[in-house]
């Protein structure tokens, strides 16, 4: 049974490989969450190994400000009691952009695999993704992006292609150098105006 890596342990691992993640912190009260929202609207997410698909289970509250935060926090805390142990995470709200998924898994025959696809809730419906075995080369990253039916959505400009190629190379390196990581999801990873942030992270040991 794979074990879900602590969110911030995952965050630190990603940052060590130069992969940008959205500002986040654990909060243990509505007050802490409100304090975190000083710089703008936030999202609250309930993290529990008993609930893998957060969006589906209604465990994500988006775009919260002021008094909404308190209500959302108590709702999540109530749901969390049924899914113990749990934690609640506050995240800066990501600005809208193009959502992609970058992922990794371990194949018993071939080893570490890396994936890119159109992200968010669409990836499972459209099954539009490209897969390669690690380590990948720069050419492989270009092929992967080219292979996507949604490549024109995913790469708004040539600069985006280079940036996404860079993320893929970093994730490939991370997977190769951390063999204990069995599965990894950066979903969504949001691209906007020449920069990107991993907005949700799930890493399994």
């Amino acid at each position, binding site marked *: 049974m*794979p074990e879900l890596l602590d969110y911030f342990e995952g965050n630190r691992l990603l940052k060590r490989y130069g992969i940008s993640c959205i500002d986040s912190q654990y909060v243990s009260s509505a007050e802490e969450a409100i304090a975190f929202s000083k710089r703008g609207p936030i999202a609250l997410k309930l993290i529990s190994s008993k609930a893998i698909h957060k969006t589906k289970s209604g465990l994500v509250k988006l775009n919260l400000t002021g008094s909404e935060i308190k209500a959302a926090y108590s709702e999540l805390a109530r749901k969390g009691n049924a899914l113990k142990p749990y934690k609640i995470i506050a995240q800066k709200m990501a600005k809208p952009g193009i959502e992609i998924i970058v992922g990794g898994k371990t194949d018993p025959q071939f*080893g570490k*695999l890396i994936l890119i696809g159109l992200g968010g809730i669409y990836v499972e419906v459209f099954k539009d993704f490209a897969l390669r075995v690690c380590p*990948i080369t720069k050419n492989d990253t270009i092929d992967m992006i080219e292979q996507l039916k949604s490549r024109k959505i995913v790469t708004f400009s040539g600069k985006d292609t280079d940036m996404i190629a860079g993320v893929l190379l970093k994730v490939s390196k991370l997977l190769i150098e951390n063999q204990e990581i069995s599965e990894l999801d950066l979903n969504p990873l949001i691209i906007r105006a020449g920069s990107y942030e991993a907005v949700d992270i799930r890493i399994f040991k």
Partner: protein
Amino acid sequence: MKKINLRPMLKPASVAIIGASRDPEKVGHVILQNYLNAGYSGKLYAVNKNAGAEISGIKVFGSVLEIKQEIDLAVIAIPAQFVPEAMEECGKAGVKTAIVVSGGFAETGNKELQDRLVKVAEKYNMPTLGPNCLGVMDPRSRIDTLFLPTYKLSRPSVGGVSFVCQSGAVGSTVLDLISGEGFGLSKFISYGNAANVDEVDILNYLMDDEETKVIIMYVEGIKRGKEFIEIAKKITKVKPVVVLKAGRTPAGIAAAHSHTAALAGDYETHESIFRQFGFTVAEDINDLLNYAKIFSSESLPTGNKVAVITNGGGVGVLTADEISMSGCLEMSKFTKRSCDALRKIMPALVNIRNPLDLAGDADGERYSDALSVLSTDDNIDIFVIITLFQTPGADSRAAASLISFKEKTDKPMIDISIGAEYTRMHRIMMESSGLPVYDSPLAAISSLSALLKYSIYKNRK
């Protein structure tokens, strides 16, 4: 990576058939008979504990140990439970390689018996193909271990395509189809359960085999992933490999925890790895043959711009559609010089553009005239010629014009001819002269795309 020498298996100077039988219903009889029919010129020994003194004029030995001569290959076709012992005798007799045709091992749940077979093969360092396989065919050395009689399955002519196949049924079907193609066979290797010799060993051997220009393969699963990647990286820099993978079932996906694991099932993983290392992925059996045809006759294109020359407007447009949808090929824009020259020599009803519709009355001469102008056009990298033989002008002289142009041009050139008997006759004429002919725009253009994509892969870095 340890390389296994399959030469004694494919080019044996001596073969022992273990299980050779007088009974025409027995597999061992058909195999022996096929060796005789194929005209194998090496030494042939029959082995059977109780078959009497001779079968079809070949002396029968009670055991391989009694032969006391050098044996390159033992073909074993006896009931599964006797196989390990027969192999043990082969090992003691110094037999160099073995093929176990018999079934009844891991594929029927008898893993223990298969493990014993592998142990013997390893103990005597005797590369063993199978079990549960058709074995090998090599029309050059006239080796044919198939237990299927020649009246049921036509044997392909000598050529440059090697076919590696895990399944016996797919193997015999595709071989039968290859016998109807002009390109011919280099080696057929059916490896069944892959207990000892597997696809990695076979690809390793075929990579260095000069008689093999193109490899086509059918696989159900790859046994040694890491070693497969090592050979895959190397082999596609040397020669093209076309692969058909079976099993699109979503096995194993239920256990996934992440989105990534749920998406990347077994088929997707294999297909992606094939793509990554420059294999050409076939979607079905027809693709295997279509791609083998173009890879075995055409040089790699140096660009993606296609000239389409047709004697039927509609098929020309369908072909142009396929080209623009291919995602890699483009319709060429003829140079002004070509257009001016064409306008001078073509009848007024011929519109000078690409696709170039020579009209229904186009004969061999009109094809020759158009091709000779376009032969010097630098905007053209590839020629696709459409010859619809139902039209008034097209006859054997049109086919002859194409054949003669094909001999002169260095650029890839293929033909599309759609039709029944009369067309088929011309297709054979053109294909036996080295011009690949396809029976639909889709088959033609997907083959051309495969050729171009391989060329791009091979030449990069």
